[in-house]
């Protein structure tokens, strides 16, 4: 095969990849602009409109289609994701820090932590429901489900931080100690700024995994639903394009989240470069 053939092949492959990645999203986005309330969730588009977006925010005249019951669920899911993100990241950083020194039983503890992301979610969720029933504990999204979210996302944060610490040169910490700086202050002023990009990645992982977690939450969240559960619930009645409109909005939200991540990441990298530029001018 010649070079241009390889290029063509790779180009085709990339095209296919993009089609499969963005195809569903594109279909979703197009259908969300279907006219309402009589237009359904299928092609062809009868007429372009933003009816379903207005419908989401209750800006349309009342019709036979009820507004999506997701407002509370959205708030719950966001709160849960933030809580999970904070707790998992703190746990992940501290656990990875502990693993920098070999300790007795570290191998066993490692597998125990990683197990949290390996075991099937449905089983863990069901198990949690049984345990809660046996102990007479009420199931809530902020209780039982929260615990499961942490158990699930903590290993991801832990593994990210473990990789970061693997590449971390411990002699900068020793250098700080030898200058008379306490280990606590050294962690705050030297170690943390240097591992910050990793911490950001761990936070991103924990947040997104928790935000759209389904199987564990299904059994463990009790009466009040989180967003993925609420959306799933609407499917069982009748699907209207308002779900698609909502899907587009959450996707935009995810992009915003990624954007924030990229900006924060860029800032910590650019800091060094900025100093160099000041020097040259």
């Amino acid at each position, binding site marked *: 095969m010649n070079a241009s053939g390889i290029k063509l092949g790779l180009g085709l492959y990339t095209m296919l990849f993009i089609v499969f990645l963005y195809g569903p999203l594109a279909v979703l986005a197009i259908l969300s602009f279907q006219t309402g309330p009589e237009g359904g969730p299928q092609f062809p588009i009868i007429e372009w409109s933003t009816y379903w977006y207005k419908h989401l925010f209750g800006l349309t005249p009342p019709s036979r289609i009820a507004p999506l019951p997701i407002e509370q669920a959205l708030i719950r899911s966001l709160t849960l994701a933030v809580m999970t993100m904070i707790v998992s990241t703190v746990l992940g950083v501290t656990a990875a820090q502990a693993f920098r020194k070999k300790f007795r039983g570290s191998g066993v503890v490692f597998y125990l932590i990683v197990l949290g992301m390996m075991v099937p979610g449905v089983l863990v969720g069901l198990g949690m429901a049984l345990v809660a029933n046996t102990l007479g504990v009420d199931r809530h999204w902020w209780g039982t489900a929260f615990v499961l979210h942490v158990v699930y996302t903590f290993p991801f944060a832990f593994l990210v931080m473990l990789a970061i610490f693997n590449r971390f*040169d411990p*002699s*900068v910490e*020793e*250098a*700080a*100690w*030898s*200058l*008379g*700086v*306490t*280990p606590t*202050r*050294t962690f705050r*002023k*030297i170690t943390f*700024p*240097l591992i910050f990009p990793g911490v950001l990645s761990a936070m991103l992982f924990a947040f997104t995994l928790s935000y759209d977690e389904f199987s564990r939450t299904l059994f463990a969240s009790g009466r009040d639903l989180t967003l993925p559960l609420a959306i799933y619930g609407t499917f069982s009645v009748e699907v209207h394009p308002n779900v698609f409109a909502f899907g587009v909005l959450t996707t935009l939200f995810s992009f915003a989240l990624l954007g924030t991540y990229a900006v924060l990441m860029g800032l910590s990298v650019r*800091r*060094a*470069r900025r*100093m*160099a530029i*000041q*020097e040259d001018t």
Partner: protein
Amino acid sequence: MRDKSWPELVGIQVKSVLQLKNVHKAFSGVPALAGVDAALPENSYISLLGPSGSGKTTLLRVIAGFEQPDGGEILFAGQRIDGVPPHERGIGFVFQNFALFPHLSVAENIAFGLENRAVDPVTDTRVVAAKVRDIIGLVGLSGLEGRAVTQISGGQKQRVALARTLVTEPSMVLLDEPLGALDANLRTRMRGELRTIRERCGVTFLHVTGSETEALAMGDTVLVLDRGRIAQSADAGTLYGRPASADVARFLNCYNIFSGAISDDAFESPVGRLALGGAQQKSGEPAYAIRYDRVAIRPLHASAAGDEVRIEASFVASEYSGAAINSFFTLDDGRVFEVETHLSHAAPETFEEKARYALVWKREDALVFV
């Protein structure tokens, strides 16, 4: 050799800033330090010489508190410090890879210790700035204050590492192969600068190196570490002229060494009987050592005078190194014998490859270990 006032010669009892007594350290059962004893005098430059794997880094890390010794005592300024955490020891450390804080500028790196140390931190930014300015002048980094430490050269990084440590005014600084990452030219220049900077600050430097020339050139005292023990502690002149054992002589890289045994008036070596007559040195293992620059190369037919020792060998190659030529010969048992001829003493001679020559030296120039 440099002229120096070695305190013991003058009879002054210097206070020692650091004392090591029988310090042990093993890594998973393999000893890295096997009973180190040493006393380092105050306000002096000490080099620690040893081959790779002899435990130099381990010794420095134990002194700094990054590693805990398995046994023994470490006294710093009269106080026992084994068990004291590193940040409470007041001992500076300069790393081979410099270990600068990559997210801070040159000035911030230097100010870090002053501002953040647990004991007596300097909170007045003007005082910090003044101290940083002084030390930057001392190590010759003026103009680079705001530069990121990822944007400076190896020699400049070395100076930042040194300045960062010196500005906190430790009474002792440990340097682990501080010149190892620099190129040969810069290394020679930094040698002189390190000595000057140390003299101005009046601290003790313990400088680890694997290079015998660096150790001899820099140290007021040279400690030789061999297999986790101090094999010799002496000033450079003594060390070079009178190594304490065949092993030390071997590290110095300026002696031809024969093993063998003493019998009556001669040393029985693999290349024949070598007549005795020079200094004898007590050490565990009998050996006969002759310095490279004490050997003369003569034609094969030339005979030795009464006070000389003569062996024969065939010429292999020569190597010019500026002021001297090093010639390599193979002895009858296959080993290499090196001769250093200073060009100020003689015009360079050319020798014929594979031809045999007589190698001759004065009996009294040899050093015999018994």
